[in-house]
């Protein structure tokens, strides 16, 4: 059951990720990216990361992608113009990419033997309770720094995007 779940959503994630790269219209890429993020949220649940899965759906698939789609609509971004690439890149690009991925998969497989495996319910300390406890004790200083970072980002975004008032 876990294997079927993993394979299904891993396949959806990879197909959507390929679609993000090959689509020429930004809206198609954005919708595909939402697909990647949604299927990753399911995989987080499989790994016992309840809070991260919820945050993934709310923050990434919800807030950030809405911001992207909003900007694409606002700028009326059209289809990307085609550019000529060199013949070597056209012929060797995809096979070399696949070879690199095969190499990475081989080494990961070598480094992590089959004995280490994931089953649903094997890790139950990803609840909001555990996250909150760690966040407000061990990681209190990074948490506070993050709040300052977000404040700076808000102010910076407003300063960058507003109209110049001469």
């Amino acid at each position, binding site marked *: 059951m876990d294997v079927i779940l993993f394979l299904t959503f891993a396949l959806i994630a990879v197909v959507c990720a390929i679609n993000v790269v090959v689509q020429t219209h930004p809206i198609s890429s954005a919708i595909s990216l939402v697909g990647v993020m949604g299927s990753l949220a399911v995989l987080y649940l499989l790994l016992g*990361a309840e809070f991260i899965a919820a945050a993934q759906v709310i923050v990434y698939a919800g807030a*950030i992608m809405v911001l992207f789609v909003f900007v694409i609509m606002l700028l009326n971004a059209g289809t990307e113009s085609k550019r000529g690439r060199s013949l070597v890149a056209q012929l060797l690009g995809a096979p070399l990419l696949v070879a690199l991925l095969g190499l990475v998969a081989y080494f990961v497989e070598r480094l992590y033997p089959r004995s280490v495996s994931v*089953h649903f319910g094997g890790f139950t300390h990803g609840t909001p309770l555990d996250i909150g406890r760690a966040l407000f004790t061990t990681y209190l200083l990074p948490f506070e720094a993050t709040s300052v970072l977000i404040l700076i*980002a808000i102010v910076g*975004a407003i300063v*960058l*995007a507003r109209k110049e008032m001469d």
Partner: protein
Amino acid sequence: MTEVPISWFLTLSAVLFVLGVAGFVFRRSVITVFMSIELMLNAVNLSFVTFSYQLKQVNGHLFAFFVMVVAAAEAAVGLAIILTVFKNRETLNIDDVDSMKN
């Protein structure tokens, strides 16, 4: 076999990251390049959560959470920069934004 090897998760993470790099390098629309960065951040998050499972610790989840926060801040500022560039140059093609080249 009912259990998923942990290496499958890490391989999926690597695949997504490489696709993000490919999009970052090959695409010409500045918005799609930006989305490729988000794809890479997502791939890294999957690695963090997987290692958190393997080590039976919650720390990886915290790092994934901080990555999400930084990604949100980065998206807000980055899209504001894209808006400003478009307002000044009327283009979204990264090859046309080359005023620092000469």
